[in-house]
């Protein structure tokens, strides 16, 4: 008896399992089956201990390390390697050579900041061949070289490591010679200034007018020029399985949280794509969550913006061949700000910031509100306005929702078309398309004029959003709110808002919440929406957990 029962049970169990299995194969039904969720190693950015003490990384060798250079060239070499984080920092070049045929010496310079022609044809040639036959027993070989050998305009002598390193990051070439406690600094600065053009997409009124170009070393030299600090570190990595292009990770040692860098490098190393052609492709492969519609990295073509992001403790990723950098980790407010905000007096900055906030809200909610108001809550429109709306609607054959969606789509079409049309026709097309199409549609009685106003206002509002990815996300969410407004009026919109903001609060960029520092509330400089006078901005944003949170005063 018992065994029979047992068998039946087993058979039942087996058939049940089979049923579950088959259900699992059908794409829709497999949603209904319980599966243990796979454990993902989710990256969480944990709080770091604040370290605002004086013995920080930048100044640490003032206390610990030797101030003056050694006479032993090996010690000097080691020290320079240490200070510049060589070989991590790969654009600092150390060229070893022999002077007078047998005295050890080396040159330190940063690739891209010096004139290679002078280096190769003048300095190296003279140092290597011109010193032959010099009397090394002479009182001071360093002076002699400076006086007789090197035919460069500015030559300086120094024996302080700090000063020397500053000069190197400023585009000087340092010459260390064995046995001498002096270092020669040769001015050979030559910034790359090839075809640096005005930024196309991020325009400002008062900001700088240069943008990145496609050449990675040039871009780095632009950044080096704007951010002259030896803690600014550039690491090269190779990405792309086939095209093997370079990619640079840039950060400021001592500010950027090392955890972020570790995670970022891990993610970039994981990229096993056939070819990475553009920063956008890399961006998609390193973001936290691919299903969220909000951008999780910030893309900028402005060097000044990139530097300000660096100083906030963010890491930059730059791909060879892309005229822009991606910054991580970012928040909504990084996307929301322009490089202009801090450039202007705080009153002006606050004003345009409020206008932009208004624009964001209009771009997201205006059409949805309109549809909810007109279809569901007519009692909330004042009588005269209602009369205007009703009069405008008379004779329009479509229901309001169709009307609205047609106009929204038409607007999106015009927008997309005008950005694809070559040259200056684009702008004209936009104006002509919008004006003439709208006017004709109203006169033909296809849409009501009030609706055109709504669509146009929300469209214009969308243009105030500085970040292209964010503005796309907002354009898409606008349709979501139109749908919600259509389904259940203001009730639907409030449900939509709830879901929308929960999603927004759950987005993370390298472990940093998207809506930080507002939700969760964190300490930050007072520049979220309203800015305060610039001397109040003492803190780096807390969410990126910078090693040092207090900015230098």
């Amino acid at each position: 008896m018992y065994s029979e029962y047992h068998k039946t049970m087993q058979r039942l169990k087996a058939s049940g399992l089979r049923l579950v299995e088959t259900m699992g194969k059908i794409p829709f039904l497999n949603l209904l089956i319980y599966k243990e969720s796979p454990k993902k190693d989710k990256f969480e950015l944990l709080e770091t201990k604040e370290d605002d003490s004086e013995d920080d990384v930048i100044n640490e060798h003032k206390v610990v390390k030797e101030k003056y250079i050694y006479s032993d060239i090996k010690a000097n070499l080691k020290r320079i390697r240490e200070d510049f984080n060589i070989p991590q920092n790969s654009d600092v070049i150390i060229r070893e050579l022999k002077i007078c045929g047998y005295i050890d010496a080396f040159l330190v310079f940063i690739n891209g900041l010096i004139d290679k022609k002078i280096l190769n044809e003048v300095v190296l040639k003279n140092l290597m061949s011109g010193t032959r036959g010099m009397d090394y027993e002479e009182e001071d070989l360093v002076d002699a070289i400076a006086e007789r050998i090197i035919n460069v305009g500015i030559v300086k002598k120094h024996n302080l490591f700090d000063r020397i390193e500053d000069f190197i990051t400023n585009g000087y070439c340092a010459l260390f010679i064995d046995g001498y406690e002096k270092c020669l600094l040769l001015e050979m600065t030559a910034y790359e200034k090839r075809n640096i053009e005005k930024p196309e997409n991020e325009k400002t009124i008062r900001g700088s007018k240069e943008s990145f170009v496609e050449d990675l070393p040039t871009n780095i030299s632009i950044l080096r020029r704007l951010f002259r600090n030896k803690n600014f570190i550039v690491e090269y990595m190779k990405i792309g399985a086939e095209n093997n292009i370079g990619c640079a990770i840039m950060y400021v040692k001592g500010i950027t949280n090392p955890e972020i860098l570790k995670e970022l490098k891990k993610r970039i190393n994981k990229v096993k794509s056939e070819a990475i052609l553009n920063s956008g492709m890399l961006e998609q492969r390193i973001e936290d969550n691919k299903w969220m519609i909000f951008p999780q990295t910030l893309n900028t073509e402005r060097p000044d913006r990139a530097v300000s992001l660096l100083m906030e403790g963010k890491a930059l990723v730059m791909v060879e061949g892309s005229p822009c950098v991606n910054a991580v980790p970012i928040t909504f407010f990084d996307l929301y700000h322009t490089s202009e905000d801090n450039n202007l007096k705080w009153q002006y900055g606050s004003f345009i910031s409020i206008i932009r906030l208004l624009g964001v809200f209009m771009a997201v909610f205006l059409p949805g509100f309109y549809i909810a108001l007109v279809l569901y809550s007519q009692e909330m429109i004042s009588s005269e306005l209602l009369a205007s709306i009703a009069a405008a609607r008379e004779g329009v054959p479509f229901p309001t929702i169709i009307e609205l969606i047609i106009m929204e789509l038409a607007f999106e079409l015009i927008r997309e078309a005008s950005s694809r049309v070559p040259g200056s026709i684009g702008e004209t097309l936009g104006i002509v398309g919008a004006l003439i199409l709208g006017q004709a549609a109203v006169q033909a009685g296809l849409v009501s004029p009030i609706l055109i106003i709504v669509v146009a206002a929300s469209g214009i509002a969308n243009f105030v959003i500085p970040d292209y990815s964010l503005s796309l996300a907002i354009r898409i969410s606008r349709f979501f709110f139109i749908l919600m407004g259509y389904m259940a009026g203001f009730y639907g919109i409030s449900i939509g808002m709830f879901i929308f903001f929960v999603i927004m609060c759950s987005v993370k960029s390298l472990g940093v919440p998207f809506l930080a520092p507002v939700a969760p509330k964190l300490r930050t400089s007072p520049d979220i929406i309203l800015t305060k006078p610039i001397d109040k901005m003492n803190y780096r944003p807390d969410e990126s957990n910078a090693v040092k949170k207090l900015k230098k005063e």
Partner: protein
Amino acid sequence: MNEGKVGNIEMICLIVNAIVCKAFFTSVAAVIQKVGTAGWYMTLISAAVSLAVFGLMYIMIRAYEGKNILEIYDEIVGKKAGRLLTLVSCMILFLSASITLREFTDATNVYLLHVSPPGYIVGMFIIAMIVVCFFGIEGLARTAKFFSYILLINFLIVMVLSIQHYQIYRLYPLLGYGLGNTVKNGIMRSSAYGEIILIGIFAKALNNTKDAGKIGLKCLILGGLFIAQILFSVIASFPYFTAAELADPLYIMVSLIEYGRFFQRVEVIFIFTWNLSTLIGLTAIFYGAVISYCHAFDIKDKRPIIISFAISIYAATLIIPSITIILDYVVPTLRDYGWVGFYSPIFIAIIIWFFFKRGKQTYAEKS
């Protein structure tokens, strides 16, 4: 349970929403019917009673650091009896969520969506709840905080604008139906603040469980002030006999706001306050119920439970066909006797802890 971390202010926003959202519906009228013009300070008595009960819960949370109240039940009375206490909490939260949701649905049906079947309104609400619960309490709490500022501003605007309808004489006679009646109802109605037990349930999501005391105190003070303010404004805007008639006095009060020809018909501000606050509050209560259930049966993965719970809430909300039954029997019963469900597990646990466990615990700590 991997729930993420919730900041203290975020937790306050969450719980205050869960407490206050009930006051947007029929409860206001019910209170005024019972205690007349004394309603606005009666609720403060309720808040004080709840504070006392919360104090008892906090004593236990402090004694067992790093544990939520459900785990503490297990520690004190053993796993099996603890499961019973947990299920009582789960049950009352479930009921509270479904009944408040029903009130919300009916109010929405009357004032906003007249033709939509209740199932449609509840359905949308439940979908939002499910989606949000999938993102976990962290996202919910952050959203709660994000919205709370906006909701607070909206609420204050509405309250300030309706000052034009306040008439001081309507607050008289000051004692309502007598002081004894007020106090009695105040104690009975302490279940209005029963959602405070959510702090115990979410305790582990806090950075430090010891913060629960401060948070609970602030929640009750804020919640009490908000509800008192709502009752005060309604009583000052309508005489007690009219306010008791209205299905949703607060909404009517807002619809009366009128400043000149253009600035009127501003209910829309209030609709957002109303909807969003209810969405946040009920999702928190719902999530609390799911956590309690999962804890009682040691379920690690909450997601399948969320969906089935949501469907049960959907059914429980719509099971009673008529609003009159809800208003006459269900809501008064929950509000008057809900404290049994909310607070009795705490009473039982604290008594057992006090007489049997406390000594052992201090002994263990010493040695």
